[in-house]
């Protein structure tokens, strides 16, 4: 039996908006074992960042997530007291945010910000926290780590700041790391280095990681498991290899056709597209939300959508092959 760290069942996030409710996340399930990397992939507005904030208990007072189960190593996150959550956040589960430019406090030194969580959660002397900060800065590849502690965020480049954010998330040796687009703002060379570092750390320290991204290249190279989100629902989940080699849901297939594949897509040829836009999620949402953009949509897509299993891979579609046979016929015709 794998070492289960996180279980989420039927997570629902409704956001009250002027005169209605925005059904931002509707009934998603996933689980994560220690040592595993789960990538949640989706486009803007798909609810992937909200999901991660719900896990961290950072949605704010106005938004109350609901779930039949949301357990982190035996602790029910939704019913946990504020004190319990404070004890978890930053210590056993931590988050790396997208924008290193705005998520560091410009008025405090790197050293203070790095040590804050450790001094708060662990009963350690300042010297020990400092030693840990230097150790982690070195681990994330920052040279002259000792002297960086006294610097302010504006003195560091974007790549360095993102590495500081990663070191900060690791200070208390968390069991779960949630990284929300950690490399989107960075150069490809730095992106590769940082992702490599994160994956190595996950394996080495036996952590689990949820990586949120819209970059399918990142997903393919980093994920053990993939969850494809569209407009607040998980349309397809499964092991990375299966999702990329045999995608079943029409949205997943469409997404993979949108990106040029070096060596496979002919240079300058027409890329695949997904026509239409994401529907409004305000008010009653029923059936398959992708039906407005799907080539295989029928009347049945307005009703209940069954979930199909193919080994560890699961997808939601009225067609039990996600329209694959229909697609093949069209290609032949």
């Amino acid at each position: 039996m794998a070492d289960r760290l996180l279980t989420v069942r039927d997570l629902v996030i409704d956001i009250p908006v002027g005169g209605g409710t925005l059904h931002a996340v509707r009934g998603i399930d996933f689980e994560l074992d220690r040592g595993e990397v789960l990538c949640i992939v989706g486009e803007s507005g798909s609810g992937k960042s909200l999901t991660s904030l719900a896990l961290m208990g950072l949605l704010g007072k106005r938004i109350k997530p609901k779930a039949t189960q949301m357990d982190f190593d035996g602790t029910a996150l939704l019913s946990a007291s504020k004190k319990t959550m404070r004890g978890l956040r930053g210590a056993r589960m931590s988050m790396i945010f997208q924008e290193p430019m705005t998520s560091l406090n410009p008025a405090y030194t790197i050293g203070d910000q790095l040590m804050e969580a450790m001094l708060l959660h662990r009963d350690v002397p300042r010297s020990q926290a400092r030693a840990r900060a230097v150790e982690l800065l070195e681990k994330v590849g920052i040279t002259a780590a000792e002297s960086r502690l006294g610097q302010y965020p504006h003195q560091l480049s974007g790549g360095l700041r993102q590495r500081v954010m990663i070191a900060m998330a690791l200070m208390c040796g968390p069991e779960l790391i949630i990284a929300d687009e950690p490399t989107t703002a960075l150069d490809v060379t730095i992106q590769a280095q940082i992702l490599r570092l994160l994956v190595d750390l996950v394996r080495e320290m036996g952590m689990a990681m949820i990586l949120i991204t819209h970059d399918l290249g990142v997903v393919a190279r980093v994920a053990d498991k993939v969850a494809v989100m569209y407009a607040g629902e998980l349309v397809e989940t499964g092991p990375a290899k299966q999702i990329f080699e045999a995608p079943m849901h029409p949205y997943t297939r469409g997404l993979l056709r949108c990106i040029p594949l070096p060596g496979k897509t002919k240079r300058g040829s027409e890329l695949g597209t997904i026509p239409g836009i994401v529907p409004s999620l305000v008010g009653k949402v029923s059936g398959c939300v992708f039906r407005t953009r799907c080539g295989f949509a029928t009347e049945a897509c307005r009703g209940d959508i069954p979930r199909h299993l193919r080994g560890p891979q699961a997808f939601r579609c009225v067609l039990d092959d996600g329209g694959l046979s229909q697609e093949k016929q069209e290609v032949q015709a």
Partner: protein
Amino acid sequence: MTAPVLELRNVVKTYSVKQGLMGRPKPLTAVKDVSLSLGRSEVLGLVGESGCGKSTLAKILLGLEAPTSGEVLVDGEALGAQDRLKLARRIQPIFQDPYSSLNPRKSIADIISLPLRVHGIGDAASQKQAVREILDVVGLPSRVMNTYPSQMSGGQRQRVAIARALIMKPEIVICDEPTSALDVSVQSQILNLLGELRREFGLTYLFISHNLAVVEHLATRVAVMYLGRIVEEAETGELFDNPRHPYSRALLKSVLTPEPGLGVPDTQLGMAYPNPINPPSGCAFHPRCPLATELCKTRAPRPVAQDGGLVECHLYDPETEMFEQA
């Protein structure tokens, strides 16, 4: 080869950067003696890490910055000799972020027709007609004319930005990361549109992007920039199949193609991009180069012609002792 529509000759751009409150200003050379030429309806992809000078180069081409020395020629005519208005008729930009590059208080029709009004082309009726036509070209319905940017999605906004760039019927379009702020499914629509427009109107693009998969897809030629220099320039297929400069190789290696199971590559680049105020001696890439020798630390390499392209590395220069090792 056809006569170049756009040519850069030994362009240098130096800024003066103050270090600290009392510091003496130091020169920062953002573009170092760059020569490039673009033939008609070519797409030149310009790639490199942040701070390598690619955006400075774009600004010089748009006439937003004057080069410190060197020349920019459009159809053989020096850019300095052309006034800004004349230049804007021939070269237009498409910027990265369609959320901040459109004035939120102007209607779409106003935004797209602004270039016509600035140049005093036609009357109100003909301008309106021109807007309607260009909206059709970029695939937007004419009913969006009276809406505002806030009512549009990112992809639609970028189409508006493209319409604004094309309404002057320019010959050259400078695309600075035109799709990096967009979702994957929208990005492919915009890339297809840029490809169609090029075929239809014979447009020439300078395509700046850090997304190498996109550059490989769209560009006909690629220039790799490092610390203000073009270190390699080649036909797209040649560069991607057979990169020569160690930096080009590292850059290509860091591309995460959607192939599961391969893991994240080790670029072996080391971490730090050098500070452009204190560039390394000799070859600027030597501190990060796995193949660097003593020669690289002291002498800057010169550009060497290679299969219709150029590469700037001692390994390819027959007059250095490193040549044999290539």
